[in-house]
Every structure is written in C-alpha cells, then in structure tokens.
C-alpha cells in the first residue's frame, strides 16, 4: 500500500511555493487601482476586467437585454463595423472574451507584447464606443432565439431553470439570463444601449494583469482603457429571498435517463463557518471520485456516471445544489441513497480520516489553480471583487487547516438538512419518490 507514505508532507511547502509570483497593487496616473503580476518569460499579457453587477441589473420587462448587449460588444466599435472589428482582432492575434454572469460582466483579454498598443486601442473601442448596429443586433438576436428554443428541449437546462425559478421566484436569479423568446424578440437598439449604460460604471470595475508588462506601462494602459467610462450605472439589485421550497417537482420528458437537480439554502461567503461548510461539501459531494455521493451512487451501485454538489454563492443569495443523471428505472433508488447520505452526514458529521484527507486535498489543490497567466488574472480580479486582500492567497489554506472535527459536526447539523431538500426530476422515472 502506498497509503500514508507521502500524505502529510504537502502543505508545509505551500506558503513558499506561492511566493513564486509577486502581486503588486498599483494605482494608475488617473487613479484607477489594479493588481499586477509581472511575468516576462512569455511575450504576452493577460488582463481580466470585471464589472460588478451583471445580468441581474436587467430592467423590469427587459430580462435578457444585458446578456444580448454583452454578445454585441465585439460586433463593431468606433470606426469599425462588425467585419472590420473582427478582421482587426484577427490581424493582431489578440483575444477578447466577454462573458456575462448574474453578478458581473467579465472581459478576459490577451495580446502579444509586439501588438500591445494596437490591441489595447481596439479593446478600448469595444469598451467605450460599441456601435450596437442594427445589422448585428438582428443576427445575434436570431442566434439567441435559436439557443432559447434548443434549451427548451435540454433536460439539464429544464431541470436547473425549474429549480431556480422555484427557488427565487421573481428575482433575476430565478430566471435565465438569456431572457425569454418573447422578450428577446422585442428588445430594441435603445434597450441594448440602456443595458450598456446600466452595466458599464467606472466605480464598479476591477482589474488585474499578469504577463509581460511593467507597472508604468500597465498604469498607462489602465487610464487608456477605463478613464473614459462614466461613473454611474444602475444601482445593484436587492438580495434574493429563497423560497424554502421542498419536496419533488417532476417534469415529464421522454428520455432514457432522468436528470435530477437538487439543493437547499446555503451559507454566505463571509460566514465564519463558510470553510467548514465548504470542506463538508467536498466530503459529501465535491470534486473527484472520492466523495460520499460519488462512492455510493457510482462506485458501489453503478447508478450514475457522475454526481457532484457545490456551494452556489451569489452577491445576494446562497444555496447548496447538485446534479446527476440516472436511468429512469434506477433514479428513485439513487435519490433514496442521496437522501440517506445527506441525513447521515448531517447527524453524524465526518470521520477523522475524511477530514484529514479533505484538508490535504483542498489545501494542495489550491496552488494548482494558479496555472497560467490568464487563470491567475481571473483569480486576482475575483479576489478584488470580494474585497479580499493580496495576503489572502497565503492565509486562505489556514482557514481549512485549522478546522476541527467538532466544527464539521456542528456545521453539518446546522447547515445540511435532508428534509429541506428540493428535487427537480426531468424524465420518466419509474417508481415513487419518498421523503418530505
């Protein structure tokens, strides 16, 4: 057996490992604050720009406008129409990725050092002078409508959408960010421009850069990119109220497998028990092949290809949710085992060995996240949005290392409750589900 031989050495090294890169907090000449990691070994730079406040800033009756707008940001800007913009991006071999989430709009950009000035000018145009021409509006509208139509026939989508609608009702977290066919069909250029003004607010921007750029150049870049974005923007939404819905919601769908989406209320990121809950979830249904749910459902009984659960945290809500698929004939048994495991961990907590293994995994996996300039830039901007200090990277693991068995037991009892679970099942399950 190899077990035990190497198991405990790892986290001793972590703090020094992470000193491999140095994070500088910089302020541009114009006063924009950002984080920088200089990494000159490869001649390119990755930048991550996030605006706090994402698709949940959608105005009443305009659900989908912000998502629509974000899909149009590289469809023409300044002097360039959609084709001109795309050709310029291609010529510079730069990449701009615009993504929209419930609580943020994110821009991941990378460009070669040799093309930096031109690439930054192009990105500036997309951020400050997007055109929102009618032609691309219609083209992208048809693509979004096609996706919305397809989503209606995807069991995974039906399951998660149903779950969140029941969980959060009228709050934006309760509906899909793409909007509905009816609303997307009716959105106008004016709505798109409004959506842009609602999201692009300079006081809500967070930036990091990792790569072949120094502090002075980065300062200039920040001012060039962001100083002309106005201050303002629509005020951020109120927190969502979780409906505390329980039981089962069966959605008929003709497919060999049933898709199950489940969950209940969660825990806030800043809660003193957050790391205990995070570790608990890892043991119950987290990454990898070793979680209790994976072991019981897949390894021991062959009831699913995979199951996982995770803490889902928004700026204004928190849940623990999970998902799996199982043949219609076996899904009732799979849910029964899931409920049993949920109840068991809640009443008994975890074993010493499980806690020890979870600690070495979670603390060891953390530094592996920092692999590559773009990944690091993404993490650093995320930290700024959560108002975490630079030093968090070297102290984060101690939150996990200091957990005691009693902490997990206490938090399991408080946080996990099998009776509170809500299940959405999409398929044609054979048999009857039991419990609450």
């Amino acid at each position: 057996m190899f077990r035990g031989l190497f198991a405990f050495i790892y986290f001793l090294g972590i703090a020094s490992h992470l000193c491999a890169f140095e994070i500088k907090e910089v302020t541009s000449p114009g006063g924009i604050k950002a984080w920088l990691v200089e990494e000159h070994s490869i001649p390119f730079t990755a930048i991550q720009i996030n605006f706090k406040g994402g698709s949940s800033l959608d105005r009443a009756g305009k659900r989908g406008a912000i998502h629509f707008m974000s899909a149009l940001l590289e469809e023409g800007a300044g002097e360039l129409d959609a084709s001109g913009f795309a050709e310029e991006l291609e010529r510079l071999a730069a990449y701009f990725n615009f993504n929209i989430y419930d609580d943020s709009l994110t821009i991941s950009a990378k460009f070669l050092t040799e093309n930096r000035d031109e690439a930054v000018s192009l990105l500036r145009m997309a951020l400050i002078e997007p055109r929102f021409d009618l032609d691309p509006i219609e083209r992208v509208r048809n693509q979004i409508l096609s996706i919305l139509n397809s989503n209606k026939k995807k069991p995974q989508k039906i399951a998660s959408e149903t779950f969140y609608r029941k969980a959060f009702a009228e709050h934006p977290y309760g509906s899909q960010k793409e909007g509905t066919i009816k609303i997307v069909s009716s959105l106008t250029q004016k709505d798109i421009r409004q959506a842009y003004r609602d999201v692009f607010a300079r006081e809500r921007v967070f930036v990091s850069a990792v790569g072949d750029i120094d502090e002075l150049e980065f300062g200039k870049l920040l001012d060039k990119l962001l100083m002309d974005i106005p201050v303002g923007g629509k005020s951020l939404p109120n927190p969502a109220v979780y409906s505390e819905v329980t039981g089962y919601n069966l959605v008929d769908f003709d497919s060999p497998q049933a898709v199950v989406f489940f969950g209940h209320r969660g825990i806030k990121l800043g809660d003193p028990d957050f790391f205990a809950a995070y570790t608990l979830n890892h043991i119950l249904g987290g990454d990898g092949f070793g979680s209790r749910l994976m072991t019981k459902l897949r390894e021991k009984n062959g009831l699913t290809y995979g199951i996982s659960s995770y803490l889902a945290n928004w700026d204004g809500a928190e849940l623990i949710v999970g998902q799996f698929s199982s043949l219609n004939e076996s899904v009732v048994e799979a849910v029964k085992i899931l409920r049993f495991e949920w109840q068991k961990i809640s009443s008994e907590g975890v074993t010493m060995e499980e806690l020890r293994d979870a600690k070495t995994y979670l603390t060891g996996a953390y530094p592996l996240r920092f692999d590559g300039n773009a990944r690091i830039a993404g993490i650093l901007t995320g930290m700024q949005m959560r108002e975490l200090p630079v030093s968090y990277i070297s102290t984060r693991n101690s939150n996990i290392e200091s957990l005691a068995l009693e902490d997990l037991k206490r938090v399991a009892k408080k946080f996990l409750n099998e009776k509170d679970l809500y299940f959405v099942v999409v398929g044609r399950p054979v048999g009857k589900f039991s419990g609450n």
Partner: protein
Amino acid sequence: MYKLFLAFLFLQIGSSTVLAAENVSTFDLNNGLKVVVIEDHRAPVVVHMLWYKVGAADEETGRSGVAHFLEHLLFKATNRLKAGEFSSTVERNGGSDNAFTSWDYTAYYQRISSDRLGLMMQMEADRMKNIRLTDENIGNERKVVLEERAQRIDSNPGALFSEQRQAVMYMNHPYGIPVIGWRHEMEQLNRRDTLAFYKKYYAPNAAILVVAGDVSPADVKKLASRHYGSLRPTIGLLERKRVLEPPHLAERRIVFEDERVAQPYVVRSYLVKERNAGNQGEAAALTMLAELLGGNQTTSVFGKALQIKTKRALYSSAFYSGLSYDETSFGIIIVPSPGRTLGQAEEDLDEVIKNFVRDGVDEEQLRRIKMQIRASHIYAEDDVFGLAKAYGSALTSGLSIADIQSWPEKLSSVTSAEILTTAELLLDKRKSVTGWYKNQDDKGGN
C-alpha cells in the same frame, strides 16, 4: 462571434501546439517506453501523463467499448492498491487525476505538486501490470459506462447524429464504431475479454510517458528508470495496422430525425488525409483550408457569405483535425436562418465551395491566419497541460517529435495554390457524407 453558439462545434480546430525545442527532451527506456519531458518552471507543478498506443479502433469485432471500459477499470484494485485508492491517494496529495480514451489512444494523467512525481510513477507503473478485477467490479462498472452512454450519447440527439454520420463515413475502418461502444455490445463486456485486451496492449513498448512542468530531464530519467524500468514489454507487439477503407464511389446521405431537435442543421464531411510521419503537407493545407473557409464567424469565407452578407445562416463552420492514426474527415456545418430549409442550406454550402475554388484565396485573410497561428504557439506556452496533451496525442497518432516541431513551419509555408488544390477535393461528393439533422415536425426540412 457569439460564443454560446460554439456548442455546435464538434472539434475545436487550430494548429496543435509546440514549444521551442530547447524545452523539450526525450529518451527511451530499455523496455521500449518512450519518455518526453517538457520543462516549465514557472510554478512547482507537474503533469504526469501515460499514453497507450491503443484505442477503440484496436478492439476486436463485436467488443466495442472495451478500450474505454478498461480505462474505467484501471481505477479499481491492483495487487497493491484497493479499488479507488489510486485517485484517493492522488487527492490526498493535493492533486487531481483522470483519463480519456479515443480511437487511437488511451491516456491517464495526474496534475500534482512536482515533488510527488515519483509517487505518481510508482502507482501508474503498478496499474500497467497488476490490476485485479472481480466480477462485482465488472458488473458495477458496466452499469456506470452504460449510464455514461445514456447521459452523453442517448440523451443528446446531436451526439446520436454524429455517431450515425461517423458510422456511414467509414464503410470498413473501425473509426465507424463509437469509442464508448454500441449499447448491445457494451452490455456483453466481460472480465475475460477486458483482461485479454489489457495484457496485450498495456506494456511499456506500447506506451509514451509525457512529463511536463517543474522538472528536470535528469530527474525524470532517474525516476522513470526506477519505476517503469523493470516492466516487461509485450513480445511480438506489431505496429498497429487497421483494416483500410475501400474506394468511396458513392455519395452518402442521411436524415436524422428526433423530437428533441430544436434547431435543424446540415453537416457535410469528407474522407481526407491525416498528418503522417514525414508527410504532413496535405494535412497542413487542409488545416489552413478549414481556417479560411470556416474558422471565424465573421471573417471566414462561409461566415462572410452566409452570415454577414446574405444572412442565410445563423452559424457556419469548417473543421479539420489532422491528428489521427488513419484517414480522417473534413467537416462543414451550416445552421440555416429561420425560414431557410435544410435543402437550401445545403445548396448554400455547395455554392460557397464552388465560388471559393473559382475566386481563390484572399491573401490578406491568409496573412492574418498565419499571424494567428504564430501567436497561438506563444499563447500555448502558458498552458503546460495543453502542451503535454498535444505531444501525447501526436505521438500516439503515429507522428514523431520532429513532425510535431516542424508543424508550425509546415503551416506557415502553405501556399494559396496548395490550399486551392485541397479545396477541389470538396467538389467530389463521392467521398462525402451529408447529414440532415431535424425534428420530424420540421415541415421546412426539404
């Protein structure tokens, strides 16, 4: 360029990546194991990947799915480890692990702190020779792969369509059989067949080890010799030779209907050459052709003609990957705009190809694409996992290190004339399969 739409893509195209030669070194052990070391010292992390030169295309007739099934079973017990202990040991050491199977290879990998490389090698070498399978393992894991098939293929009409098209494309070669297996054959997978496959192909002389990250070639050599050096090779293992395709003399067409289809589309694929050792010229031209025709939604030939100018398509793309042991395919997909039928979409497809062959290559566009390819090799250095994967998949597809390292040069030296010559292949539909993907309720299907 609307990202969500990429869900339609089957293969992400692009020039597979290489690294400056000075960062890559290679050596062979006496038992035939080839080792590739890729150095990247920016973070104290290593990727350890063991690639076997065997995949689904090497299965015996009637045993489809056995290569992938075996991949799952390598996470069960060995003489030294309990079932599941491989992964739990990796996790306990802060790493993550997984495996994947294709027609041409089966690969196992771990990402972990670089000081754990020896442990990874010790465990990986152990399971190359010492797995112990019970009938219970077989029974349970067979259920798991059947669930996997149900989730990834049977619940996904696009995947079913792709499986059907592939089966029609290859009239004789095993690429026509899905990697995961046909359900009725998967249900029959047993211990005896699985172990026979294991004993024959899981050997150092059928494997390639790729170690990438914060390591030195000398250390890797020492560790690899210690852990893998004593493994016995399979005697008499020959170079892989699969049955070949006969001449394709008739255009093939399929119509796939499923009530879960919301968005109809048409896909055409052609049987074409793959990258071959010492002979990558045609594959390089095909790679550039795919980029020119359908690499970018807004600037490519298809995108410009059908999405921007005439608005006849919601989405279009051309795709080709030369990484394949035997002959591969070149594909084109057109998703028609509302109101356009699949018949019209197919006419559009043919018309754009015809016009391209007539009008020739836009030199400006070709220059931009070559710039992107040059840049992609710089960006690739940021992704050590991707580099390890690129080397492993190329080496198990029959290429040499020299082939991998000369590939960027091959791509940048492709001429417009060579691209046009390969484009003419697309005019011959006898080597093609055209598939319509639709809902039975689609009145506008034809």
